[in-house]
């Protein structure tokens, strides 16, 4: 019946459009230009009011009738059984009655339920009739009213635009209200959690032991074991590893795509790269768990020294930057040492130093690598993020005006010099915001970490060990078999903290993007 009513309203709306347009046309006659609004707008205005009035009446009447039926059934159920029913019994009874009425399968059948079902069927019919009358009536009233308003001077165009604007505003409001509602509920639940741990915020933000459900058998959270530091440290470590993989590869891919690839290569490379972004993260997850993590475990003897070497060279590079800043020209003088091989020697010292540190810690180069490691999760997550960085950076690099490239080439710069000294600095704000968006994806990523990094809240610096992240702990809390009321509180607190961090990152990224736009607009 409701569907029928809606259909009738749509038909009336279509009729309203045609009638309004026809009336306006007829009014105008040959003085078409004298009509304030074109006939289509008169039709549109009529149509919109018919829809708003008709569907509005339908929703209101249907809702009111539903409420009346429910309350009547509730009171009748108590009267029929002659005893006070608990809420759950009542719900069951009403559901059974509805099932009998609509031909479903009830849990049990008795006279009281059948009587209720009979009422439900009858009431349902009258409800349908009421909805039909109200909906069609309102629609027809709106049709007549708007049609009577049509005249040469009637500003249907301005008015229908106002109605459209209102519809758009309502849609936007719904989206905003939803967000606000989610944030408010996050805040509320977080406050409840803090209340349960007696407002020991310090323990939450700086504690190093995470096992919030340890005291659950005594019916309360153990405030000693709610330290979120290991989770955030794990998140940070995996994010850093992921970005170390994604940023260089993504950025270099972007530079290749935007400035070196021929249009033909670019035409098929870019979509291919973006396919990476379309792979579900759960697929990346088991790829990490089944392929990458065991590979790392089996080859720890090779990977650990390589990592140590890389870390040492990176430290050496940073030290060089600092020294160059403190004493300009340091790098040049270093290059001239040792017969022109000064710089090579400098990095060799750092590399050997890195290896020496690892050797002193483990002379046999036999490493006990966990089968789930931060490295495996981080590397795979990095691969997942590459297309985000490369695609966004490619757009940003392409947005650097050709005139800047020409200016640089015109001064006799090579392509590489132009990219390094003009294009990248000009695109830097956009690239930074691409990286920050990548970071917020890495922070929020769950599946890969669940499968490849483990669940133990382990506070460690070693990327070869198992760690856990905020999102993984939320999953563990919610899907665990502890009752939802208790488990949800720490999950909400973690969720809120994570939300806050991601929000801050996104706002920062947006600000950078805005600054970047101002530069060229």
């Amino acid at each position, binding site marked *: 019946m409701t569907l029928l009513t809606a259909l009738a309203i749509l038909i009336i709306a279509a009729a309203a459009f045609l009638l309004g347009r026809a009336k306006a046309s007829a009014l105008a006659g040959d003085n078409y230009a004298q009509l304030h609004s074109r006939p289509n707008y008169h039709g549109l205005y009529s149509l919109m009011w018919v829809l708003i009035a008709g569907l509005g009446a339908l929703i209101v009447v249907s809702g009111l009738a539903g409420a009346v039926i429910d309350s009547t059934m509730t009171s009748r159920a108590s009267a029929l059984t002659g005893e006070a029913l608990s809420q759950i019994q009542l719900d069951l009874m009403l559901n059974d009655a509805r099932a009998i009425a609509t031909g479903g399968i009830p849990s049990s059948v008795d006279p009281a339920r059948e009587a209720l079902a009979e009422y439900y069927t009858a009431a349902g019919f009258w409800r349908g009739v009421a909805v039909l009358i109200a909906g069609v009536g309102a629609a027809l009233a709106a049709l007549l009213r708007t049609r009577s308003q049509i005249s040469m001077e009637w500003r249907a165009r301005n008015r229908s635009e106002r109605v459209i604007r209102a519809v758009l505003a309502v849609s936007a409001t719904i989206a905003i209200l939803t967000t606000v509602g989610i944030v408010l509920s996050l805040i509320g639940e977080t406050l409840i959690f803090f209340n349960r741990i007696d407002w020991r915020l310090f323990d939450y933000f700086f504690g190093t032991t995470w096992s919030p459900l340890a005291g659950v058998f005594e019916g309360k959270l153990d405030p000693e074991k709610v330290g979120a530091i290991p989770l955030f440290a794990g998140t940070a470590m995996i994010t850093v590893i992921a970005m170390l993989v994604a940023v260089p590869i993504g950025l270099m891919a972007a530079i290749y795509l935007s400035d070196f690839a021929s249009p033909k290569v670019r035409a098929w490379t870019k979509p291919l790269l973006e396919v990476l972004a379309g792979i579900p993260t759960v697929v990346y997850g088991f790829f990490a768990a089944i392929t990458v993590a065991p590979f790392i475990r089996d080859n720890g003897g090779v990977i650990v020294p390589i990592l140590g070497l890389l870390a040492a060279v990176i430290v050496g590079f940073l030290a060089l930057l600092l020294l160059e800043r403190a004493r300009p020209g340091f790098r040049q003088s270093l290059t001239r040492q040792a017969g022109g091989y000064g710089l090579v020697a400098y990095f060799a010292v750092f590399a050997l130093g890195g290896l020496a540190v690892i050797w002193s810690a483990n002379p046999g180069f036999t490493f006990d690598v966990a089968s789930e490691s931060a490295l495996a999760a981080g590397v795979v997550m990095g691969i997942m993020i590459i297309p985000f960085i490369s695609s966004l950076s490619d757009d940003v690099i392409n947005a650097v005006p050709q005139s800047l490239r020409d200016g640089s080439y015109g001064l006799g710069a090579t392509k590489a010099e132009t990219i390094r*000294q003009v294009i990248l600095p000009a695109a830097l704000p956009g690239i930074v915001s691409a990286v920050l968006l990548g970071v917020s994806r890495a922070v929020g990523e769950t599946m890969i970490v669940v499968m490849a990094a483990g669940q133990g809240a382990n506070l460690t610096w070693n990327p070869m060990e198992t760690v856990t992240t905020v999102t993984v702990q939320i999953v563990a809390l919610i899907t665990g078999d502890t009752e939802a009321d208790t488990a949800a509180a720490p999950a909400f607190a973690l969720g809120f903290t994570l939300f806050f961090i991601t929000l801050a990152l996104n706002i920062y990224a947006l600000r950078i993007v805005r600054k970047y736009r101002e530069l060229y607009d």
Partner: protein
Amino acid sequence: MTVAEDLGGDAPAETGAVARIPSASARTAPELKMTARSCDVFYGDNHAIKNVDVDILDNTVTAFIGPSGCGKSTFLRCLNRMNDTIDICRVTGELTLDGEDIYDAKVDPVQLRARVGMVFQKPNPFPKSIYDNVAYGPRIHGLVRNKADLDDVVEQSLRRASLWGEVSDRLDQPGTGLSGGQQQRLCIARAIATAPEVLLMDEPCSALDPIATARVEELIHELRENYSIVIVTHSMQQAARVSQKTAFFHLGHLVEYDDTTKIFTNPHDKRTQDYITGRIG
């Protein structure tokens, strides 16, 4: 070698039907800097420049005039091989700088562009500080040994672009924050800092107001002391004011090339006359 000697020898053989090379200059003739002989340019199938012969003299301002789409900018971009960056563009014929073929396989376009600098229609300062904008060329070409020399080059370039007085106290501010006219003079300073021998200017004043235009024109006049300058312009008054030689392009042909005074008072070709009197273009 003077122009007269050079052209006297092979003018009949070299010059096409449309281009008229001047016979002699009244004053002491400047040196020949760049030459083009039967130069053709194609964009894909489009024949943009047809059999152009031009001589660019040292310490002279040469103006290229002509209606939009006549190929004057395209030809200008051949002179420092900027067209190399456009894939579908093909250049044939002989173009020389100091007698060397610039399209020879041995010539590195990057080095060529350091010798033949370019200023563009729209001011395009890099999003860097004013100082770094000017220092860009000297840095990449290793023209200076230390910071003091670089400071010196930057100051000299800005002075010669008559911008020093306006920016000397804010060299660390972004170049994009200057006004349009200042930006264009910054771009000129940036081009001078690389110490080119020839300066190509592609409608350098078309985005500027009359006051900024006057300053840039004044600047062109002063720069002529040290450089060979080629300027593309839509403004015939500008060509008449700043140049000593003028080349008129029409539909990819070089219609006429002569002393500026001759072009504007007594043009040889009917099309030139029609253009400068405003009947075509």
